[in-house]
């Protein structure tokens, strides 16, 4: 049997709503901040790690080596290699899986995985026709060729193109996609608001008991996720107007309170072999045991964010486990309705039989074990950072209870999803 990668420590910046305190800093700055804190907490200054792998979803073309550039700004040995990964909201967990696999194979002994995103500092592109004119102009060798290129210039092309939060093949925003899935599974407004409330209450309680003290380093004076509303209530959440799904037949249920807003932040996690951790006198929180990615054809009818519905049963089956064997279940709260639709699918006998090919329903998730210290609705969701946030949180939850088994499930744009098993 191959060895398993140990989850040693995690660190992140507090997450902040886009356009606020981190408005002037880049994804690279955020990644440096998250790495700095981890390096300081684990005593990694001057250390040559096997690799650092991270990514950003909203990425500038100049940031082709985002992670490597960030590493060079830290106290890590400059001989630490790095590479970037991009898999939408699955980025952070996918980086950890890639690194864990290398550790399991003995290719590296240690490394850092994670991600950063700044929705505030998002790239703005040139109009694609203008870009082609400029490229042709740079290739033109004769005045006539230059003139020909320039003659294709139009004033309208000078308008910059901001990033769009829409699926390229469907034209629908992620929220609109989620609203369609919510309607299909008849997820109620109240259930979504209750899940959002639980997320805020659980995260607030986690801060109160110091759970996040060694998972987070203050940045630019921010000490807590600024989206957290410890005093929110079902009444306040119920008063918010729906923002997605207003063009559907069913009543619109998704609001700013039960959806994640654009967020800035970064998160990283230190993985290593057990031997490396022991040599560096760093306690092991848990092990990353296995992972499974899945994708659905969201262009032709499947719910955009439902791929984890498929990934999780495959992962559990491969490991001979059921939902009842899990002590902690972390389901990324892109939208409250996404979590609830996922849980509903696993409970639905017909769906599990006809679509997932299971003999009986996958089962129910005990709500007490679901996102016990809150998730993205309360922390916010800087796309590429979320996976490392959840992985470090999960590992610490297992370490805190003295052992156990946890499942992580994260949905992503492009109809993709990733699930992972963590054990301590």
């Amino acid at each position: 049997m191959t060895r398993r990668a140990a989850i040693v420590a995690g660190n992140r910046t507090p997450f902040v709503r886009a356009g606020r305190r981190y408005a002037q800093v880049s994804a690279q700055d955020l990644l440096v901040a998250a790495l700095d804190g981890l390096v300081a907490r684990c005593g990694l200054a001057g250390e040559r790690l096997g690799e650092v792998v991270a990514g950003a979803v909203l990425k500038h073309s100049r940031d082709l080596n985002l992670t490597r550039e960030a590493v060079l700004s830290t106290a890590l040995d400059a001989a630490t290699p790095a590479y970037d990964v991009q898999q939408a909201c699955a980025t952070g967990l996918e980086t950890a899986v890639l690194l864990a696999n290398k550790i399991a194979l003995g290719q590296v002994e240690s490394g850092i995985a994670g991600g950063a995103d700044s929705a505030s500092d998002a790239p703005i592109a040139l109009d694609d026709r203008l870009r082609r004119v400029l490229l042709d102009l740079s290739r033109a060798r004769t005045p006539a060729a230059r003139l020909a290129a320039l003659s294709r210039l139009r004033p309208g092309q000078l308008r910059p193109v901001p990033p769009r939060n829409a699926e390229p093949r469907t034209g629908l925003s992620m929220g609109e996609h989620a609203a369609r899935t919510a309607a299909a599974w008849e997820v109620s407004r109240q259930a979504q608001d209750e899940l959002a409330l639980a997320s805020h209450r659980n995260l607030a309680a986690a801060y109160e008991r110091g759970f996040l003290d060694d998972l987070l380093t203050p940045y630019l004076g921010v000490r807590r996720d600024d989206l957290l509303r410890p005093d929110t209530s079902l009444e306040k959440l119920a008063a918010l107007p729906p923002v997605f799904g207003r063009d559907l037949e069913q009543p619109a249920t998704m609001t700013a309170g039960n959806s994640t807003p654009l967020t800035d932040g970064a998160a990283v996690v230190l993985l290593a072999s057990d031997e490396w951790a022991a040599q560096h006198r760093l306690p092991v929180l848990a092990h990353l045991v296995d992972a499974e990615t899945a994708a659905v054809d969201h262009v032709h009818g499947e719910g955009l964010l439902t791929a984890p519905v498929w990934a999780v049963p495959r992962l559990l089956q491969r490991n001979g486990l059921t939902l009842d064997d899990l002590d902690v279940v972390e389901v990324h709260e892109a939208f409250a309705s996404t979590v609830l639709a996922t849980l509903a699918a696993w409970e639905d006998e017909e769906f599990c039989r006809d679509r997932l090919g299971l003999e009986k329903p996958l089962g129910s998730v005990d709500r007490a074990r679901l996102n016990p210290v809150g998730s993205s609705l309360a922390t916010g969701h800087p796309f590429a950072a979320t996976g490392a946030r959840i992985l470090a949180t999960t590992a610490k939850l297992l370490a805190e209870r003295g052992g156990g088994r946890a499942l992580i499930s994260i949905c992503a744009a492009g109809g993709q999803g990733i699930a992972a098993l963590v054990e301590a």
Partner: protein
Amino acid sequence: MGRSTGRAGTGPASSQAAGVRTVDGPPPLAPLYARSLLRRPRRAVDFPRTTVRAQGVRADVERVAAFCRATGFPVRDVLPLPVPHLLGFGLQVDLLVREPFPFRLLGLVHVRQSFEQSAPLPVDAPLDVFVRAVGMRAHQRGATVELLTEVSRAGTAQVVWSGRSRYLARGVRMPGTPVAEERLPAPEGEGTLWRVPADTGREYAALSGDVNPIHLSRPTARLLGFRRALAHGVWTASRSLAALGGPAPAAARFEVAFGAPLLLPSTVRHVARQVPGGWETAVRSRDGSRVHLTGRLTRR
């Protein structure tokens, strides 16, 4: 760079019937530059003992981020080592223009600078900033004046950051033998190329407030006798510090000596060498014939 040893003496401001003048905050500098043209330098080759003070000033996130974009530092939770100098620079100009010195502000040449901190300062923390002249000494080409900038967390007495700026006033005659400056080592090697664009001076002027015309454009620089605009010395020093491997130590001192002016636009070479306890740096012209800056970072 030790304390100055010139004839006009050093010593704390308080020992010499000195006053403290408090300003509300960094003053707008363009009017002060204009005013410096009208002012007649004092006759006596001496410097005033006044301290100019600003209380509760902050390096806010926007300004720090602009500084970092211009120089290459990542935006951290703590201020890059040179940033408190920006908070004191306006006070330096205020001191040099409003108090009697035997030279005019415009035309001063920045020859030496050091930044030193015992601990990093958080972004946005309210700070008290004190600026005073601490010495003059004879120089082969005139006289130099040394300004000391001291920074403490607001309301505390402990100085955690200090900077020494030495400016040359050409043509000022000062009795005494010119004291040779300690030379900083200039590391050799190919180093890295910096392509420094023409608007570097304007960008740095906008964020630092140092709107000295020599940095802004070719025509304004020509008025003051330079062929082209030149980069701010503190910009060059900051970019050099930012280019060193990893974060600077929490307690550190970075001292630089400025050589030939870095004319804009330019392509120059930055050479850095790790030495026990720190780094040595040099910014040279691309062909290596001129040295624009030598620097030394030491862990404290």
